[in-house]
């Protein structure tokens, strides 16, 4: 069942333009200039119920703007968007009760009072029955290890603790759709893993649909089979993560440990990195088997591994290729709220 459908979704911001300097500031009083910035342009995709999809792109690519349109914060300039059969921008209560939006730096927790009071506030706002609420709180406390935090004022929590509580308070009403915008931003590796495990567990037990943006590829690799890649507001890729690697990375990485140091392997393949007796090479995918065979036959090899390049590298390659196709386009972070 399709839960999210975007059809030529577009958002254009009109931003004021002013040259620097006092004179130009004075001129702008009488002659106001603006320009349109297309933050999201003709984006089309569908998400099925229960999917976890990674939404990738550099800063200013249009990820957050898209999430804001899907959650009803922003009205699209053009195109159609439907979430659970609702037009998000109408912000009907029945729609808002079934979704949640977690943004890395913005919060639903009340700063000055204990976490449990924020939970209680959301219980009332979402009209949750007491038994179901208690059951959900117990589940969240256990999964996210919150027992020690509930009676602490939010301002006294560490960033990681606060983020765990943010995720918990956003899920008290057991939403069917989760929009997670950088949920692990600024967290240490342990805390990132915990949030990640929790999201996977919540998705497994509730069947919720998750659309996740993250700059940490570990999040995406751990959670998402499918990814959407957006750049300059346009969708560049929609498919399986493996397919992304296949399509945008025609190379493999070979790491060789040799018995001797300072061997020159440039005749075999492009040398990416040498450290002691470990050499990292990159080879066109179709030459991987032949190159590996030659290395093993010719050299005193202790160990050899063949890997796909890191996902960060693949994503970077996607953006680079897009830039080569579209050299005039430039990123405009500041213009994209």
């Amino acid at each position, binding site marked *: 069942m399709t839960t999210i459908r975007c059809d030529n979704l577009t958002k254009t911001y009109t931003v004021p333009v002013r040259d620097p300097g006092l004179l130009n500031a004075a001129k702008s009083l009488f002659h106001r200039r603006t320009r349109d910035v297309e933050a999201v342009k003709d984006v089309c995709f569908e998400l099925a119920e229960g999917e976890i999809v990674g939404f990738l792109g550099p800063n200013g690519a249009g990820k957050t703007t898209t999430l804001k349109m899907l959650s009803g914060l922003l009205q699209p300039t053009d195109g159609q968007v439907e979430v659970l059969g609702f037009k998000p921008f109408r912000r009907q209560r029945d729609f*808002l*009760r079934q979704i949640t939006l977690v943004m890395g730096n913005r*919060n639903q927790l009340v700063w*000055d009072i204990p976490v449990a009071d924020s939970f209680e506030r959301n219980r009332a706002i979402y009209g949750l029955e007491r038994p179901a609420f208690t059951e959900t709180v117990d589940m969240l406390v256990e999964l996210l290890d919150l027992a020690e935090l509930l009676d602490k004022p939010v301002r006294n929590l560490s960033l990681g603790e606060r983020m765990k509580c943010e995720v918990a308070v956003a899920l008290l009403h057991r939403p069917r759709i989760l929009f997670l915008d950088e949920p692990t931003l600024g967290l240490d590796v342990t805390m990132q893993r915990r949030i990640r495990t929790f999201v996977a567990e919540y998705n497994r037990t509730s069947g919720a649909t998750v659309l996740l943006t993250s700059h940490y590829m570990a999040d995406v690799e751990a959670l998402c089979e499918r990814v959407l890649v957006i750049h300059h507001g346009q969708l560049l890729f929609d498919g399986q993560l493996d397919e992304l690697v296949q399509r945008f990375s025609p190379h493999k990485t070979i790491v060789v440990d040799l018995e001797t140091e300072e061997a020159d392997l440039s005749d075999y393949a492009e040398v990416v990195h040498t450290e002691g007796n470990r050499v990292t090479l990159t080879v066109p995918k179709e030459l991987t088997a032949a190159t590996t065979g030659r290395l093993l036959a010719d050299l005193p090899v202790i160990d050899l591994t063949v890997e796909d390049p890191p996902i960060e590298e693949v994503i970077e390659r996607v953006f680079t290729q897009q830039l080569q196709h579209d050299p005039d386009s430039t990123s405009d972070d500041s213009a994209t709220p």
Partner: protein
Amino acid sequence: MSAWFGDIYRTLFKIELAVMFQYRAAVVIWLIGLVLQPVIYLVVWLTVAETEGGRVGDFDAGSLSAYFLIMMVVNHATFSWHMWEMGYRVRSGSFNSLLVQPLHPFHRDIIQNMAYKVLSLAIVLPVTALLWWFFEPTLTPEPWMWIALGPAVALAFLVRFFFEWSLALLAFWITDTSGLNNLYMALFFFLAGRMAPISLLPSWGQAIANALPFRLMLAFPVELLMGRLTPEQVMDGFLTQILWIGLGWLTVHLVWTRASARYSAVGA
């Protein structure tokens, strides 16, 4: 539906009260400002009365004291600050977390306002009693005036809240609304009877004050308790207050739809 709203109002009220307790010093400083202003006006008007032979218009020292002290309490009960906060919410994107929840921000603001009033009344009332003892005002209301005061103040609060919330929504069109807010406050000071009783204004000033909702936000309950209005005038005041509330509700409803469509949800 009504049970849900009842639960929301009860729960959020308690939570807002708990938040206010965290800001005791700020609450007290705000209150000092709220008390000082009318006391200064009172002292100025008492001085004017003294130089004019004991009276200014139809007010003597006792009734001037009564007017400004009652006005202080009514102003406290009816004031709101959200028009100053709305611009920040829009500019900073802090509206985001409110808009994704199934509760209109209007309700949250009204609950926050009520919580503040309940907490601060615990200070305002004893301070008023102290000032009452000091200034020795003259006040002899009839019982029906005390009964009518409650609804008059409640309606005045709603007129003011709807009016100022509608005005606050202009923050979606104008980046910085502080100039507009100051202009509104200047009008309010004169036309609501805060700086001087409306009967002391020139006749054209009185006509404007009566045509706009300002008087109904503040001076009307004060004049009621001071026995300066007939029962017919009080009924007329109630009806006009209800009319303005209806108009305010309609304005908030219509403007909100357009205002939130303009929202650019800045910030992550």
